[in-house]
């Protein structure tokens, strides 16, 4: 530990100390000229020249010189270099932070046990004044013992360390260590990093900077030999409606990492905890394959499924969990005019009928009036080129306020009763032809809207091929949202919300009369997205990944997670819930008005139910591990340590060393900020010197004679 300077060049300014001396000997003499009538007597008195240069006020001179010196030192930005602190027990008390990786890859062999042994060894070597913290980490980091010298407590904390389902992330753990070291008042710090050091856990730019005087001691507990690991990376669950029943054909994708020779792997499918199928798969080393199981009938909601692989050193990625529930067909009502041509909805009906999983239950009504019975079980209504009456419009208003959605396609015969004009997103104008050239096109699509979101990616659907030869004009209201415009700027599709539902107005025909959109490949997914959006159906996700969080109070999230109506599961009623984690722990979810987050830390099935109830088919969430952790490629522990610890550990002379050392010096100087104190002291000295000097001058000037003219 020594005093050094960040900008030593400024020390040249110390030469400025001579300034007050020069001023003292020169300017001071010029200032105190005494006019005297005659020097005839004074000239006769011999005197010594050196006497004139005698410094009378040594104290003042010292103050000035000291203030200037402090000023120079302040500009040179001094700091106490702590990077030369010794390492080890002999260098004084240490702040020790032990980071133990608890990612699921640590379950390989006895890696975790060895990590705990190493940690215990570190704790045993603590000096009497040392303090230690124990931090476990995977995706996140948790301090289970903080800055204590109580070895019993440390041992007890160490005993609680177990493998989690998370993937390795070094960044959060090192940041926790950085915080502990920064808050410590001990002169040095050691960070022991106990891990299997997977490369995926470190991206090299985590913003971790350990304080000066601390070092990172990586201890790898990875298995020395390469392991043969197989994993389930994905399961697809396509559905088909066969004889009115929903059948699912699971296909599992299997990847094998490592190994030396091809081997046959038995892939097993479990449903609701019972093994129903097993398929063999021959896999070469570092190869991938797929297994398709026999279809099974999906009849029960919240059906849990798992694809299992035989045991290998890394167990967590050998199982893949999912949850399925029978899909409910979305009721769609197509209304067309009573006198319309029979094929007015040909393409629309065809598009809605084309679905293997029977997601749409399409009904057709050819009348200008809509009866209440027509809307039973219907979630979306397509008014395809029809002029409905006022009573039907009012029924549709009620339908929409209850959450339904309608699309009004304004073709040749389409219209809307003036009595319900407020239900439309604007005022409908006259027809306009775009017959010149090759007709109009869609020039603008709101890709952030759920209808067009799936088309936002490249090669995800091309609307520009469609030609529009005739359309109606719409003057949108302020509350309307324009979702699509033609290339001349006129509105093509607009939306307005009515109660919990919505109205979309398509300003041209929805079949191939005024345009050829129905002949384009994008037509079918476009119509499907329209129907699903109008009906309020969200895409279900059969599983989550560890580390994600689900809000049990968010209906949309639950629709996604639960695969069946969350209302049916009782989650939206604001009642108390309890979540049973895969490890068997109960996690209370008390009723509240705000969000109710459920962190998915473990892989397996989370069961959510009301306390005290025991439903046959409870709400279930499937969680799988993050497969990044299955990639066991290692990072060199020393390389990792070099990137985060004090730069003195780098190779002296290298460019990295120079830059890192400079950064470290700047960091030390910034933390200590000695220059501020030096400036304050220098200012104080200047003020004191000025006050004393003025006082001395006033006292001295009282004895001076003056000459006047």
């Amino acid at each position, binding site marked *: 530990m020594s005093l050094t300077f960040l900008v030593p060049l400024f020390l040249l300014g110390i030469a400025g100390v001579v300034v007050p001396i020069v001023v003292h000997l020169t300017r001071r*003499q010029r200032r105190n000229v005494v*006019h005297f*009538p*005659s020097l005839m*007597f004074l000239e006769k008195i011999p005197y010594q020249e050196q006497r004139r240069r*005698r410094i*009378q006020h040594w104290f003042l001179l010292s103050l000035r010189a000291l203030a200037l010196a402090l000023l120079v030192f302040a500009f040179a930005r001094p700091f106490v270099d702590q990077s030369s602190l010794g390492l080890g027990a002999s260098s004084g008390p240490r702040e020790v932070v032990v980071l133990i990786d608890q990612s699921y890859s640590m379950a390989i062999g006895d890696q975790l046990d060895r990590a705990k042994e190493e940690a215990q060894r570190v704790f045993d070597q603590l000096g009497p004044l040392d303090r230690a913290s124990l931090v476990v980490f995977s995706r996140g980091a948790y301090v289970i013992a903080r800055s204590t010298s109580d070895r019993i407590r440390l041992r007890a904390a160490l005993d609680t360390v177990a493998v989690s389902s998370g993937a390795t992330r070094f960044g959060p753990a090192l940041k926790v260590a950085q915080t502990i070291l920064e808050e410590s008042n001990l002169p040095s710090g050691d960070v022991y990093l106990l891990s299997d050091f997977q490369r995926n856990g470190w991206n090299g730019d985590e913003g971790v900077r350990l304080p000066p005087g601390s070092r990172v001691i990586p201890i790898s507990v990875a298995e020395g030999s390469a392991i043969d690991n197989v994993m389930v990376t994905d399961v697809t669950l396509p559905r088909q409606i066969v004889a009115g029943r929903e059948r699912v054909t699971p296909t599992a994708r299997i990847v094998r990492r490592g190994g030396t020779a091809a081997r046959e792997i038995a892939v097993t499918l479990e449903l609701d905890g019972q093994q129903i199928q097993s398929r063999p798969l021959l896999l070469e080393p570092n190869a991938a394959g797929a297994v398709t199981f026999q279809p099974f009938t999906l009849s029960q909601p919240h059906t849990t499924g798992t694809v299992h692989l035989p045991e290998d050193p890394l167990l967590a990625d050998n199982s893949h969990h999912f949850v399925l529930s029978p899909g409910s067909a979305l009721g769609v009502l197509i209304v067309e005019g009573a006198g319309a041509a029979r094929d007015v909805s040909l393409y629309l009906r065809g598009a809605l009928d084309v679905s293997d999983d029977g997601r749409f239950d399409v009904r057709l009504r050819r009348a200008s009036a809509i009866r209440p019975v027509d809307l039973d079980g219907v979630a979306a209504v397509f008014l395809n080129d029809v002029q409905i009456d006022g009573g039907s419009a009012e029924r549709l208003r009620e339908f929409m306020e209850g959450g339904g959605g309608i699309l009004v396609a304004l073709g040749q015969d389409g219209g809307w009763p003036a009595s319900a004009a407020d239900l439309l997103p604007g005022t409908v104008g006259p027809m306009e032809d775009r017959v010149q050239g090759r007709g109009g096109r869609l020039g603008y699509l709101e890709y952030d809207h759920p209808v067009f979101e799936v088309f936002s990616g490249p090669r995800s659907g091309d609307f520009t091929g469609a030609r529009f030869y005739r359309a109606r004009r719409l003057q949108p209201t302020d509350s309307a949202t324009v979702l699509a415009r033609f290339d001349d700027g006129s509105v093509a599709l607009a939306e307005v919300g009515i109660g919990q539902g919505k109205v979309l107005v398509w300003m041209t025909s929805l079949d191939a009369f005024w345009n050829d959109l129905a002949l384009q490949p994008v037509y079918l997914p476009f119509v499907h997205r329209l129907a699903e959006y109008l009906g309020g159906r969200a895409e279900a996700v059969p599983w989550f990944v560890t580390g994600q969080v689900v809000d049990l109070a968010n209906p949309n999230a639950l629709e996604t997670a639960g695969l069946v109506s969350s209302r049916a599961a009782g989650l939206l009623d604001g009642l108390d819930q309890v979540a049973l984690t895969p490890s068997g722990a109960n996690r209370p979810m008390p009723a509240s008005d705000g969000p109710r987050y459920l962190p998915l830390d473990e892989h397996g099935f989370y069961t959510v139910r009301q306390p005290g109830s025991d439903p046959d088919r409870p709400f279930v969430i499937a969680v799988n591990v993050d497969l990044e952790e299955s990639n066991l490629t290692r990072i060199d522990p020393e390389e990792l340590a070099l990137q985060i610890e004090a730069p003195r550990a780098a190779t002296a002379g290298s460019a990295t060393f120079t830059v890192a050392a400079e950064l470290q010096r700047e960091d030390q100087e910034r933390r200590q900020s000695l220059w501020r104190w030096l400036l304050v002291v220098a200012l104080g000295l200047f003020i004191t010197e000025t006050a004393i000097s003025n006082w001395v001058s006033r006292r001295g000037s009282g*004895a001076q004679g*003056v*000459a006047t003219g």
Partner: protein
Amino acid sequence: MAISRSGTAAGTQFLDPAVLGRIGNLELLARTVVDGFLTGLHRSPYLGFSVDFAEHRPYMPGDDIRRIDWRLFARTDRHYIKLFEADTNTNFSVLLDLSASMSYGSHSLTKLDYARYLAACLTFFSSRQRDRVGLVTFDHDVVDYVPPSMKHLDTVLHTLDRAHAGRPGNLEAPMLQITEMLRRKGILVVISDFYEEPEAVLRALGPLRARGHDVIVFHVMDPYELDFPFEEASGFEDLETGEQIPVIPTKLKGDYLQMIQAHLDALEKGFAKNRIDYTLLNTSKPLDLALFQYLLARERLSKTR
């Protein structure tokens, strides 16, 4: 006598130089000083003898009892003084040094101010006595010359009023010129700080004395010149030559005081030897000392003439 050489007499604080410095008009100043001074004297200072009777006036305390008209006392049993027309044959001239060194002053008055007040007072006093008053100012040359005349009081006072010091001084050359200019014998009052060697001073004033003038010398010195109370090391600049030398007063003070005292002693002895009345005036002291010295000299001169 109510006045001493060393201090200010009771009732004459008005002669304090600091107070006089606030009076701008020299005539008013001179009248104030002279009248104030005279009222403090027990004896009338007006001298001079003449055969021309003027009038009688009642005796006032301080009048010379020799001038009481005893005959009239015998008839009236009252004391009367016989007044004669004063002698107007005396020429009174002030020779005022305007060298730059006279501009020095450590307090409110410079030596030149003090000298001007003194010259004004003496001229006014002499004019009251019906002397012919004149003025010569000089530095290294004659600057202004007002020939002695009964009517020149205002001219003298005006010349004094606008006199200022600025050039180097030298006694010998101007004194020779003055000797040539003042051919008629009279009373010459020389006011200077005499920053020359005593021999040179006496040599310069010698021709005046040889011409038969009665010479009265007032040596005007600032208290700082006499006491040298400086403490801080400074550059001392000669007011006449502009020369500057570094001085550590605490170191030189002793030598300086010895030398200045030797200078004063040499001057005093030299003037006494040449029968020249010499008075050292400290500008921090009232004017009454100078006036008193002048009266003594006049009285002595009147007896010897």
